[in-house]
């Protein structure tokens, strides 16, 4: 399947921003299951691409002239191999066993993971876990915030894709299975779920397998991978800081379509959450 992406993020500030800096993970790279046919970032000033600690393509945009708005655009075409279920990698998966503040497994999560999988760690057990988590954390836009932890979302029984993913990572790691956060785009013909998306990957039989808790998908047939990391903070598309500017309004528009880029907006987001 060939996916066309158009992702535009606009920041407007009430006051002038004196300086700002953003870590942008908005460029996919080639892998066993995706081939980047074309990709273009449009930024307010030229920025050299680099590779971040997780192998993601990173652009660091620094602006030290006063500004009132920033527009960041990403567009391109990527060919997805829908049949490929897993991806291999030469780097050790062991660093993905560690917990972070957002993926800490509390007693409730540990018990849940052990009960749902009966302590098995094969792919089917993790698929059972994925489905159980989808039931337990009900997809509820607006119920959580960017800094909500897996334990909080799990306790409240509500969240979005970011929370589903964090909870899955906490469960998998508590079972001794290396697992990581994936940020990317999802092609969907319904508009129920947003196009900027997050899911998990777990290391089973020497390969990374996908687990999309929100959509209960164990095969990433409609998923375009942008970046991976220990949690949202490592992999999120935009992470930035600024001096001055007062209140901020952010508008993001993502269009994911198959085949030719005929742009029809699928969704408008007020806040750039991964849902």
């Amino acid at each position, binding site marked *: 399947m060939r996916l066309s992406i158009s992702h535009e993020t606009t920041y407007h500030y009430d006051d002038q921003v004196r300086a700002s*800096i953003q*870590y942008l993970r908005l460029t996919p790279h080639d892998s066993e299951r995706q081939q980047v046919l074309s990709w273009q970032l449009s930024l307010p000033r030229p920025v*050299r691409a680099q590779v971040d*600690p997780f192998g993601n393509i990173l652009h660091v945009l*620094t602006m030290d002239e006063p500004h009132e708005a920033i527009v960041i655009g990403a567009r391109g075409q990527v060919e997805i191999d829908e049949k490929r279920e897993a991806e291999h990698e030469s780097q050790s998966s062991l660093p993905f*066993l560690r917990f972070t503040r957002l993926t800490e497994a509390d007693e409730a999560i540990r018990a849940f993971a052990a009960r749902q999988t009966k302590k098995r760690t094969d792919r089917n057990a993790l698929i059972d876990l994925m489905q159980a988590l989808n039931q337990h954390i009900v997809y509820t836009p607006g119920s959580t915030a960017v800094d909500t932890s897996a334990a909080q979302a799990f306790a409240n029984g509500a969240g979005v894709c970011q929370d589903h993913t964090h909870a899955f990572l906490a469960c998998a790691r508590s079972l001794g299975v290396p697992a990581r956060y994936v940020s990317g785009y999802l092609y969907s013909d319904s508009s129920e779920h947003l196009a900027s998306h997050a899911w998990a990957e777990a290391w089973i039989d020497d390969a990374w397998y996908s687990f999309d808790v929100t959509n209960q998908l164990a095969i990433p047939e409609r998923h375009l991978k942008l970046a991976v990391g220990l949690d949202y903070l490592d992999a999120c598309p935009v*992470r930035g800081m600024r001096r001055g500017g007062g209140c901020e309004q952010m508008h993001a528009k993502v269009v994911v379509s198959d085949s030719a880029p005929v742009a029809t907006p699928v969704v408008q987001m007020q806040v750039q959450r991964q849902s």
Partner: protein
Amino acid sequence: MIRTFYDEMYDVDGAVRPHYREFARWLGEAPPELLAQRRREADLLFHRAGITFTLYGDEQGTERLIPFDTIPRSIPASEWRVVERGCIQRVKALNMFLADLYHGQRVIKAGIIPAEQVLANEQYQLAMQGLNLHRDLYSHISGVDLVRDGDGTYYVLEDNLRTPSGVSYMLEDRKMMMRLFPELFAAQRIAPVDHYPNLLLDTLKSSSPLDNPSVVVLTPGRFNSAFFEHAFLAREMGVELVEGADLFVRDDRVFMRTTDGPKAVDVIYRRLDDAFLDPLAFNPDSMLGVPGLLSAYRSGNVVLANAIGTGVADDKSVYPFVTDMIRFYLDEEPILKNVPTWQCRKPEELSHVLANLGDLVVKETQGSGGYGMLVGPAATAAEIEAFRARLKAKPHAYIAQPTLSLSTCPTFVENGIAPRHIDLRPFVLSGRETRVVPGGLTRVALREGSLVVNSSQGGGTKDTWVVED
């Protein structure tokens, strides 16, 4: 249980050891009033110089004077040369371990250390994977904590490869002793230490491939317990002391804000933990770091001393493997011994520890500063039971060691002079070459019988002499 302690000044028969003879003669002749007056003088001078230490866990957050004891700790030069070689050997091996761990990982493939032990360790930084550092150096400034057992054998208690502190006390203690008792330094040859700031600056400059790099000291700020030292070292080296907000990143380069406009920074002697360095890459709540610093670092445009990710090598759960690392990387026998260590993450070692809690010292693998540790022989039954519960709940977070007897040194106390336990932290500088200034920081546990020398736990310091014998 009766323990025998090795005393630095007196041998088992109570005779003064040769390297202390000059001092003992002087002490015997000095009138007690004079000594008391000089000690008061020392207190006053330290107060005036503002050499203080902020205590964590103290509700008032008080700044407290670290007690300074005027009886020096003295080491014969022949003995020091062995300790020095041992420290250099150890730090070389630890730097090679870090370079290997973040590149080919030969040490794992050879089965010297289990992969999970280091790669799943929180202190292992993916950001360092495959990154090439100038001279392959990670720990430019290292502190090796040494203690001596009952027969005087030196043991390494732990390595400090993140932001080891205390060197300012080493320097100030020497200044104080020379000022109060100049006659002692005229009577014998005591190796100087005052060139440390020059060596440090030289080490920092040699950490960069540039000819004359610009160096700054990055401090978390005046509320940090070691702020005095950060300011002291910057002043002694003649470089800028900065906080995170004084620096910024533009196009992968680090600049310092100055009244003359931005000035490029090439080397940062950072006294800030990894997690706080860059809020866009690590702890997002850090107000102490520099946004974008990691991208500049990974682009090779700035040197951090010490490097990011050194904590994986001084983690207490990795400590048991250091002697094998020395054999593996240097093909040499370790000069300094490790304290035998039980790893509580291993079930059979945990059961041994649980059965012998009353005799052991138990430490958190991630802990430092003497917080969160159990000294079995000094603990009450209730304290031991409370610790047993913590240990059972999180065994992987602890290691245990036999209670070492720690050597003693005569120290001024309320009722005259009495032996108190001490340790030693030599500072190892790794640059073009690996160097140690003679001696280091001697910490003394001022409470009678106490084995905890950390300044946060009521420890004091002594001047440390290496005396030509």
